[in-house]
C-alpha cells in the first residue's frame, strides 16, 4: 500500500473518533436538557430554585 493510504487512513480514523466524541457530548447535553425541561414542565424543580425565578443560586451537583 502507498504512503498516501496510511496518511489518509490516519486522518480519517482521527476525524471519525473526534467527530464521534463531539457528537456524543453534544447529543448527551441535548438529551439532559430535554429531561430537565420535562421535569420542569411537570412541576418538579430543584429545592434551591426560586419558585418563579429564571436564574438559580447555590446548590450542589
Amino acid at each position, binding site marked *: 500500500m502507498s504512503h*498516501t493510504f496510511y496518511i489518509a487512513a490516519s486522518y480519517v480514523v482521527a476525524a471519525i*473518533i473526534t467527530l464521534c466524541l463531539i457528537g456524543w457530548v453534544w447529543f448527551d447535553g441535548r438529551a*439532559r436538557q430535554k429531561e430537565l425541561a420535562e421535569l420542569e414542565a411537570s412541576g418538579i424543580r*430543584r429545592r434551591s430554585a426560586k419558585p418563579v425565578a429564571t436564574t438559580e443560586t447555590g446548590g450542589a451537583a
Partner: protein
Amino acid sequence: MPESLAITKFSDLANPTRFLGLAARILPWMAGITAILFAIGLYLTFASEGDYQQGMTVRIMYVHVPAAWLSMMCYSVMAASAIGTLVWRHPLADVSHKAAAPLGAAFTLIALATGSLWGKPMWGTWWVWDARLTSVFVLFLMYLGLIALNRAMDDPGKAARVSAVLILVGFVNIPIIKFSVDWWNTLHQPASVIRLDGPTIDKEFLWPLLIMAIAFTLLFFTLHIAAMRNEIWRRRVSAQRRMAARMAGKEA
C-alpha cells in the same frame, strides 16, 4: 486582598451552578477558537514539506503526537481532580474526572491507531510490544476500566472516591510512558519536542505540530467543560426524579 479575591473567585467556580453559568458563556468562544486553530493547523499540515527519510508519512505526526500528548495530559487532569475528590471531597472534582475518562480513552485510541498506521510503512510492523507502545496500551485499558467502574456503581459519590484512588494509583504509568523511550531500548523514537536541550525537530514540522497540539488541547478542554456540564445536568435529573418519587410516595 488579591490572594483572598483569587480564592473567592476559585470557590465561586467550584459551585456547580456558577460553573454552569461560566460554561454557557465560554463554551461558544472555546469551540470557535478550536475550529479556527484546526483550520490553520490542517492548512499548515498539508502545506508542509515531506521529511527527507519518512517522506509525506511525517504528516501522520500532526495527529499522532497531539493525541498522544492529550492521552497523558487528560490522565494528569484526572489525577488532579482525584486529589480534589479525596482531599476536599468536592462534587465538581468528582464530575471532572468522571467526564474526562471517555475523552482520554478516545484520544489514546487515536494515538494508538495513528501510531500503528505510521508504524507499518516506517517500521514494517503495525504493532510491537515495546515499552512505549505497551505502556500506552495499558493507559487505554485503564481509561476503559475507570469508565466501567463509574458505570458499575449507582452512588456517584462512592464511585468517585473509588475511581479517585484507582486514578492516583494508575498515575504511576504516566512517567513510565514519558520516560519509557529513555529507560528501555524501544522501537519508538525518543522525545524530539519536549527536551531539556530544546526541540530537535525542524521548524518546518514544529510549527504545524504546535498549532495542531494547541488545537487538540483546546478541543479537549472544550469537550471536558461540556461533558462536565452534561454530568451536572445528569445528576440534577436523577436527584429531581428521586425527589418526585418521594413526593409521589408521600401522596399515595
